[in-house]
């Protein structure tokens, strides 16, 4: 664990300014097997210290790749100099940030650091199972990985904190061929919060998921192209999670609102069906621990939930301390940084649509001609709310029944239009947490939701 060499530096904080001093260690371990060959076998430890100083509406920041008292003193000095430069040349004249109550949050224990052999042996076990039980594949990739962030934060006001967030996953990527020799691909990730040795004790636990993935790619290689156009679809929970994060979540990040996002003129307006409620959860959702819980952010703000849409009405934004001052809202712990050398940005934590009361089988049965879209490979959205998600697994729905599997396709729409078409909401929330959100810096996030019946544009032929 990081030793606390930072608290004693408080006396050096720039007077009259808000100051954050953060020590951080990012750890990553990764093993990749490509059709049985170890093509990646790497470990990384990145640590250092940074300081950020707020002065009259602009920030100065500095970091060093060294976690030592000397480095802390140097970055405090450089950050203050940068804050003075900005105040002099581009000063916004906004005065100080409202002070936060002083508190402390500290984890008590460090985390395990399994040897590389642990990752390699587990990846080999999964790879051997795939090689033996999935004979029709032309290629397979197995990845075993872990990343973690440990942060020690000292602030001039707000919370001092020592936090650790580890997560670990295995990925299985399968490639098969269609009848005319075209490759098709499908992947699945397993895992979540926690170190690798705790999440992955027995390879056999994951064999049923590998079997399911193989079953799906065997159907996908017999799949059909979607018929392009506006269609009624059921979005599976993973797709709803992507929608929650990409299409809505980003537009209600306050920095993007200030940059002209569509949410700026929709606060307190109807933006979705009354069946839709959407929350960015801090650490507990629907009575359970979130996939990637956050207790304190990197500005020293206690993390609390933010209700973004309540019964279809846009009710709030996610804020930093500075943007909260601008909008007259309360900061609720959304300002987070990826590396020691990164400044905190407004980021989501665990964003999910709330469950409804509909059963998935009833939702599928309600559609005569449409699609059931289950899994997504990637997604992007615009500040206008126009979104796009790649669909890697889905099925036709014909006369209330699942039909043929789909080849890769894409869906798109405008979030605040599309959400108004939601007329059924499933009763089960599905979470994903293995990916990174990209916004100047990467950031681990959780995203989730229930199945939704709605209308979207689908790409195809």
């Amino acid at each position: 664990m990081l030793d606390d060499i930072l608290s004693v530096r408080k006396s050096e904080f720039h007077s009259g300014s808000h100051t954050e001093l953060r020590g951080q260690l990012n750890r990553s371990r990764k093993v990749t097997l490509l059709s049985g060959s170890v093509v990646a076998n790497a470990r990384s430890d990145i640590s250092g210290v940074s300081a950020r100083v707020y002065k009259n509406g602009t920030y100065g920041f500095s970091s060093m790749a060294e976690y030592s008292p000397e480095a802390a003193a140097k970055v405090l000095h450089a950050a203050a100099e940068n804050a003075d430069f900005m105040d002099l040349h581009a000063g916004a004249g906004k005065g100080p940030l409202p002070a936060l109550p002083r508190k402390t949050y500290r984890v008590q224990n460090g985390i395990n650091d399994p040897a590389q052999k642990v990752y390699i042996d587990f990846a080999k076990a999964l790879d051997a199972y795939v090689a033996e039980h999935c004979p029709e594949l032309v290629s397979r990739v197995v990845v075993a990985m872990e990343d973690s962030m440990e942060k020690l934060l000292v602030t001039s006001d707000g919370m001092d904190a020592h936090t650790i967030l580890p997560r670990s996953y295995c990925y299985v990527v399968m490639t098969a061929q269609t009848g005319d020799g075209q490759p098709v691909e499908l992947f699945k990730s397993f895992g979540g919060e926690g170190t690798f040795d705790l999440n992955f004790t027995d390879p056999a636990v994951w064999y049923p998921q590998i079997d399911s993935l193989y079953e799906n790619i065997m159907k996908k290689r017999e799949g059909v192209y979607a018929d392009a156009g506006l269609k009624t679809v059921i979005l599976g929970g993973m797709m709803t999670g992507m929608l929650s994060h990409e299409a809505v979540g980003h537009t209600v990040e306050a920095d993007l609102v200030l940059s002209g996002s569509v949410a700026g003129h929709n606060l307190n307006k109807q933006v979705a069906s009354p069946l839709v409620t959407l929350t960015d959860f801090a650490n507990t959702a629907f009575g359970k621990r979130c996939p990637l819980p956050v207790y304190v952010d990197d500005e020293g703000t206690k993390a609390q939930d933010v209700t973004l849409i309540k019964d279809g009405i846009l009710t709030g934004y996610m804020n930093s301390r500075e943007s909260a001052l601008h909008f007259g809202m309360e900061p609720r712990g959304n300002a987070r940084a990826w590396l020691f050398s990164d400044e905190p940005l407004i980021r989501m934590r665990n964003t999910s649509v709330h469950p409804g009361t509909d059963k998935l089988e009833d939702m599928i049965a309600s559609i005569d001609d449409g699609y059931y879209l289950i899994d997504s490979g990637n997604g992007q959205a615009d500040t206008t709310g126009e979104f796009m998600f790649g669909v890697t697994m889905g099925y036709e729905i014909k006369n209330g029944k699942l039909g043929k599997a789909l080849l890769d396709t894409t869906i798109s729409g405008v979030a605040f239009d599309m959400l108004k078409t939601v007329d059924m909401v499933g009763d089960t929330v599905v979470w994903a947490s293995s990916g990174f959100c990209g916004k100047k810096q990467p950031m681990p996030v959780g995203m989730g939701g229930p199945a939704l019946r709605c209308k979207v544009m689908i790409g195809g032929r």
Partner: protein
Amino acid sequence: MDNLESLAEYIMVEARAQGADYVHCVVRESEKREFNVDGGRFSLMRTLFNRDVSITVLKGSRKGSVHINRFDEGSVYDAISECIAASESAEPDPAWQFCDEPTEQIYVQGAPVCDTEKLFFRTKELLEDIRERHPKILIEQMITSHDVYRSVYMNSNCVMYHPTAGAYNFSLMYSGHEGEKSTSFFGSDVTLANLDKPVIECALIDRELGEIEKQLDPEPLEGKFTGTVLLAPAALSEIVLDAVFGDFVSDSSLIDGTSIWKDKLGEKVADDRLTISLKAMDDDVVIGSRVTGEGYPAESFDLIRNGRLVSFDLSQYGANKTGQKRAGCSTGNVFITAGEQSTDEIIKGIGRGVLVMRFSGGTPAPSGEFSGVAKNAFLIEDGKITGALTETMISGCVPDMLNSIRAISSDVLKDGSVSLPYIAFDGVTISGK
């Protein structure tokens, strides 16, 4: 241990002492000075002092790698031990191979010294120029920086490179706004070796800002048709280059045999006018590459020449795995040879189609099939741009498109790392509501 050369030599000696048959390392110090603009106003100034140590070893043809950012002897010793342990856990693979021809090169590239005052001046000037020339544009975020590094690449076969390189980088994300109307966002980037002229005059920044301003009243496309898609450089990269480099010519898909071009070397895969090259060094590349990741001297090469696939983009490892030749380099410096018509002349020859500046789509399938949203797009009818589009999707197959090129533009984007024209492709599915 603050001397980079001494640290690299220590790694060579210590890794061999701990049992490595082969070792290479990159030891690097870097500094960044950066200004941030958010929502059209200055928000942050950053100064970063970074260090990196990357070590790779082979022990009995088993490979291990570690990365840390500390230079002290204890941390580096531990990293070497971890690297050895990682390699001992791996499977032996005789395909790993690294350069064994001794060489030493010391060189400087770009702008190694930062003029912070001038960087701030050019940043502020760019904001003012945009306000004056493009009043409907809101800068969502602009990041301007000077980045410099000094590094040592060394391997146990006496291969040594000592580059010092610096550059000014400007990255803008923006959208058009008028009342409650707004456009999709767009990004412009440029890397510069000096700050001699206003940044708005560099790359295609002024032109791209002007195009986005014209997109404030987009209309959805009605129906579906097969037509011509004119891809601007960013969209060309996101659709065509992603598929070519991601799925057809690189290590992963060739090693596992899923590349649809695996048997196409020497054969025609595209229209005769298409030539795609990767540049190790070039007058239009601010910071080039003199060494590959495996220690070989980097050389520019043609991937596709006059429509014919003349090389794969393989590392030495990939080459050994597939029995093919190693590529001269593996960089992001993609150059596509310009055509003879201007973009305006190409548009005049299109009956019905779309001009796409940015593409938001799923990762192209291994077959090259893709679909996604045509962002920052215009409808072309009877040789003219007739309006901006929203909620319009395009789908097609990259290998088919490469053989259906209508025209390649004479005007190109040169942003300090790539040189890309606009290219028009026939036979693409374009669909609206």
